[in-house]
């Protein structure tokens, strides 16, 4: 730890604390997919969405008519939100656990190891799952936007722009993974140069 700058150490600790916080929050977040399934079983999904505090109406929107509520695709919406939400929470926990391991390895000044490359690869996979979950959730939110003329402003409020953001995240992580792998192979070659 002597060679590591004080600020880098502090930075790693801060990110580890944030990762721990996200792990706890995402574990609690599994309640949301369960909540959506509950709405589905209970029926009247459109009415539940409309009455929810997190559902904001577009300005000038009207209360949905009975026919709109009746035609709302209840189960597709519930399944998109529940499956998307569950995958998102799982992926977020996996991402943070992996990030925590990677940061602890870096804090121990173990910079170039096969295990670290493997951890970065897992980060890329976790982010891919997040992209997939964001697509499902954005699809679900599109249904409420189209049918009920409003948008979800609470948990699981991802839209198509969030999907694009998470794709950028995958690209950035993939670039880091490829660079790290190359650095590892260069180091391996250097280690075997006598």
């Amino acid at each position, binding site marked *: 730890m002597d060679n590591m700058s004080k600020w880098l150490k502090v930075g790693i600790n801060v990110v580890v604390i944030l990762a721990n916080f996200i792990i706890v929050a995402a574990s609690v977040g599994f309640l949301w997919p369960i909540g959506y399934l509950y709405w589905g079983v209970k029926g009247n999904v459109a009415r539940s969405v409309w009455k929810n505090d997190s559902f904001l109406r577009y300005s000038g929107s009207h209360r949905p008519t009975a026919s709109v509520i009746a035609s709302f695709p209840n189960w597709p919406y519930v399944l998109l939100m529940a499956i998307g939400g569950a995958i998102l929470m799982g992926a977020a926990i996996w991402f943070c656990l992996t990030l925590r391991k990677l940061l602890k390895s870096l804090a121990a000044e173990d910079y170039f190891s096969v295990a670290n490359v493997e951890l970065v690869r897992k980060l890329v996979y976790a982010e891919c799952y997040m992209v997939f979950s964001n697509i499902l959730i954005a699809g679900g939110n599109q249904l409420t936007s189209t049918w009920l003329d409003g948008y979800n402003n609470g948990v699981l409020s991802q839209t198509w722009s969030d999907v694009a953001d998470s794709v950028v995240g995958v690209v950035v992580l993939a670039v880091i993974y490829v660079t790290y792998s190359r650095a590892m192979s260069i180091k*391996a*070659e250097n280690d*075997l*140069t*006598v």
Partner: protein
Amino acid sequence: MVKLTLNVVMAERNISSQELAAAIDITPANLSILKTGKAKAIRFSTLEKICRVLDCQPGDILKYVPETDDTVNH
């Protein structure tokens, strides 16, 4: 592929790995990498030191062996 025949020359000169490692100022672990053929590359400076201590030419410790299908697969 290029093979290192350091073992042979060392045996001819009757010099141990420890002695050679100390004489050319590399670690025994690195000398072992050379002797077991795991090395990916050898520095000119290391080659020079080996040749000086063992009183030989680079060609005495490096041999080119054409690769057969069998060696490529392995």
